[in-house]
C-alpha cells in the first residue's frame, strides 16, 4: 500500500542525527533514531521491503499517525473529529455574570473602564432557571453540566451566587446530574470563609490572576481607589489552599511592562509555599487589545513571537519550581463555549451572549432569558455568526500544520475583527510561536532526552514552517458587519 507522511508532522532536530517527531492530529511525540528516519523516508517513497523489520517499523509509524495511506484525506479526519467535539450533545455550559461591576481598575480590562452596576433582578434569576430547564429539555443527551461564575467580579454579588447555586443544584439532582461550578475571580474577596461556602455550593475551580511580583501587580491590578491588591489575594489563597480542595488556576497576564519580572512572581509563590500544591497551577497569557474596551494598551502588547518564546521559557521555569504543568499541545483550542451551540452566558439584565469577550457590549448580545423560543430557534443574526463560524473555510487555517491543535483559536477575532487592533488582530495562538520548545520541554521533563540532546537555537519554532501569517482582517470585518 502506498503511504504518505502526515501533513501534521512537526520535526524537531536533535543532536546526533535524531529527531523529535510530533503529530498534531494524533498528538503523538516520538524520538526517531537515524534508522527510523531512513525508514520513514523509504515508507513514503514506496521503497519498503517485505521484511518483518520494515513492517514492524511501518506499523509503529502508522500507529502514531506519522504516516497515512495515500488515499486518506487527513483534513476530513480533522474536520470529523472537530465536529464531534464541537457539537457533542453530552454537555452544556452555562456562564452567569451576577454583576458586571468590578472592584478593580485594571488598565487593560477588555470590558472597558465604565462598567455597568446593574443588579441581577429576581426576574432575571427566574429566567436563568428557566433557561437551564429549557437547555436540558432541548438536549436530552446531556450528562455533564458546567456552570461558571463570571463578571465583572462575581464575588461582589455573592447573594446571587448563593441563591442561584441552590436552585440550579436542585434541578441537577432532580435530573440525576452532578452540579459543579468554576469561577473567574480577581481573588480579592475569596477568603477562607467564602471559599468554604463556595466549595459547599459546588465550586471546584477558580481562576485568579496575579500579574507579576507585587510592584507590578499592584500597579496593574489595583482596587478602584488605587490601593494594591497583591497582598490580600495571596493572603486569601494561603488561608485555604490546603484546607479547601478548590483548584486554583493562577493566570498571569503579560505585556511589555512586566515581561522581565514574571520569574520573580514564580519565585515568590514558591517561597510562600504554593509549589507542589496539587490544587494550584500557574498559566500564562498575553495582554491583547481584543475589544474596543482595551485599545488604550495596544502599544503595550508583546509581539507574538516575543510572547511565544517568553511563554515557553516561563513554563520551563514554572515546571522546575512545581508551579506549572508542561504545556503539551492540546486538541482544538478554538472550541470554546462561544462555538458550542447550547452554551450560553447570561448578564445581569438578562441578555444572553456567546463569547466572554462581548458581555459588556449590548450590541453583541444574541438573545434574552425572557425570549427562550427565539434563542433556541437560533434566529438572532448575532447568534448565527457564532453557530455558522467554520475554521475550515479559512485557507490559512486549512493549510496549517497545527490546525488540529488550534482550530482557528479565537472565533471572536474573526467575528469581531473590527474590534481588534495591533498584535491582537492575528488570531493565531502562542503555540504557533513556541510549539517546538514545548515539545522539547515535554520530552526533556519526562526523561526521554537531556539538555545535551539539543541545541537551543536549533529547536526554535519558526511559525512560517507551520503556516503563513496571512489574515485578511478587512475580509472578516466586511463579512460580519
Amino acid at each position, binding site marked *: *500500500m502506498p503511504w504518505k507522511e502526515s501533513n501534521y508532522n512537526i520535526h524537531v532536530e536533535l543532536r546526533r542525527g535524531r529527531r523529535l517527531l510530533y503529530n498534531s*492530529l*494524533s*498528538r*503523538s*511525540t*516520538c*524520538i526517531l533514531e537515524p534508522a527510523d528516519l531512513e525508514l520513514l523516508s523509504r515508507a513514503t517513497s514506496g521503497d519498503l521491503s517485505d521484511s*518483518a523489520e520494515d513492517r*514492524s517499523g511501518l506499523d*509503529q509509524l*502508522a*500507529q*502514531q499517525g506519522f504516516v*497515512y*495511506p495515500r488515499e*486518506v484525506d487527513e483534513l476530513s479526519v480533522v474536520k470529523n473529529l472537530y465536529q*464531534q*467535539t464541537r457539537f*457533542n*450533545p*453530552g*454537555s452544556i455550559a452555562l456562564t452567569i455574570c451576577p454583576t458586571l461591576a468590578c472592584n478593580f481598575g*485594571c488598565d487593560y480590562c*477588555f470590558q472597558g473602564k465604565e462598567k455597568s452596576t446593574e443588579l441581577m433582578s429576581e426576574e432575571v434569576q427566574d429566567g436563568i432557571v428557566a433557561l437551564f430547564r429549557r437547555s436540558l429539555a432541548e438536549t436530552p*443527551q*446531556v*450528562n*455533564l453540566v*458546567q456552570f461558571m461564575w463570571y463578571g465583572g467580579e462575581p464575588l461582589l454579588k455573592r447573594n446571587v451566587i448563593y441563591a442561584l447555586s441552590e436552585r440550579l443544584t436542585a434541578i441537577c439532582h432532580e435530573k440525576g446530574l452532578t452540579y*459543579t461550578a*468554576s469561577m*473567574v475571580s480577581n481573588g480579592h474577596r475569596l477568603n477562607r470563609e467564602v471559599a468554604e461556602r463556595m466549595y459547599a455550593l459546588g465550586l471546584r*475551580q477558580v*481562576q485568579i490572576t496575579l500579574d507579576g511580583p507585587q510592584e507590578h501587580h499592584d500597579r496593574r491590578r489595583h482596587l478602584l481607589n488605587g490601593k494594591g491588591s497583591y497582598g490580600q489575594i495571596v493572603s486569601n489563597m494561603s488561608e485555604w489552599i490546603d484546607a479547601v480542595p478548590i483548584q486554583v*488556576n493562577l493566570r498571569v*497576564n503579560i505585556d511589555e511592562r512586566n515581561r522581565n519580572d514574571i520569574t520573580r512572581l514564580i519565585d515568590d509563590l514558591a517561597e510562600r509555599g504554593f509549589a507542589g500544591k496539587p490544587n494550584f*497551577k500557574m*498559566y500564562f*497569557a498575553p*495582554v*491583547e487589545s*481584543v*475589544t474596543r474596551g*482595551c485599545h488604550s494598551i495596544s502599544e503595550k502588547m508583546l509581539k507574538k513571537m516575543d510572547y511565544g518564546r517568553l511563554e515557553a521559557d516561563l513554563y520551563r521555569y514554572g515546571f522546575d519550581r512545581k508551579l506549572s*504543568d*508542561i504545556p503539551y499541545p*492540546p*486538541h482544538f*483550542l478554538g472550541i470554546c*463555549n*462561544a462555538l458550542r451551540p447550547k452554551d450560553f452566558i447570561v448578564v445581569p439584565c438578562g441578555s444572553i451572549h456567546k*463569547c*466572554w*469577550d462581548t458581555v459588556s457590549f449590548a450590541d453583541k448580545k444574541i438573545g434574552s432569558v425572557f425570549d427562550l423560543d427565539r434563542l433556541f430557534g437560533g434566529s438572532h443574526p448575532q447568534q448565527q455568526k457564532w453557530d455558522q463560524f467554520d475554521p475550515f473555510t479559512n485557507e490559512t487555517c486549512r493549510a496549517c500544520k497545527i490546525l488540529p491543535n488550534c482550530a482557528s483559536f479565537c472565533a*471572536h*477575532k474573526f467575528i469581531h475583527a473590527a474590534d481588534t487592533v495591533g498584535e491582537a488582530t492575528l488570531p493565531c495562538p502562542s503555540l504557533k510561536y513556541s510549539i517546538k520548545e514545548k515539545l522539547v520541554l*515535554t520530552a526533556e521533563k*519526562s526523561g*526521554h532526552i537531556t539538555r545535551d540532546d539539543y541545541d537551543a537555537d536549533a529547536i526554535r519554532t519558526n511559525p512560517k514552517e507551520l503556516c503563513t501569517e496571512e489574515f485578511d482582517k478587512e475580509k472578516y470585518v466586511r463579512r460580519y458587519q
Partner: protein
Amino acid sequence: MQIVVGSTIGPAPQVVALQAVCGAVAKPTGACAVVGTGAGACGAVATGDGACGAVAGGASACVAVVKGGGACGAVATSGGVCGGVAGGAGVCAPVVGGAGACGAVAGAGGICGAVAGGAGACGGAISGTGACAAAASAGACGAAACAAVVGVCGVVACVAFPIGGNW
C-alpha cells in the same frame, strides 16, 4: 522509535467497506486494521506482535486487543463503547469521540492513553511501570495522569477556561 507521548486517536485507518459487523484477525507479527463505517460492532485482534486498530464509525461497540507486544488502538467515533487492551509491553490508545465510555489497559510496561472527546467516562490503567494518561475533555476522568487545556484538569472533570480576554 521511542514514544514520548502516545497517539490519542489510534492508528491510521484502513477502510474496509463493511456496514454492520466488522472483524479481522491478523496472524503473528502482522498488521490488522478494520473500520466499520456503520453502526455495527467492530473488533480486531492481533495475536502476535503486530499493530491492531479498530474503528467503529457509528454508535457501536469497538474493541481492539493485542496479545503480544504490539500497538493497539481503538476508536469509536460516535457515542459507542470503546476498549483497547495491550497484553504485553505495547502501546494502547482508545478514543471515544462522542459520549460513550472509554477504557484502556496496558498489561505490562507499556504506554496507555485514553481520551473521551465528549462527555463520556474515561479510564486508563497500567499494571506495569509504563506511562498512563487519560483525559476527558468534559466528562469524568480517572487515571494516574491527566492533562488538559491550559493546565486546567481536575480529578473529576477537565474543564478549560476560555483563553481570550484580559481577565
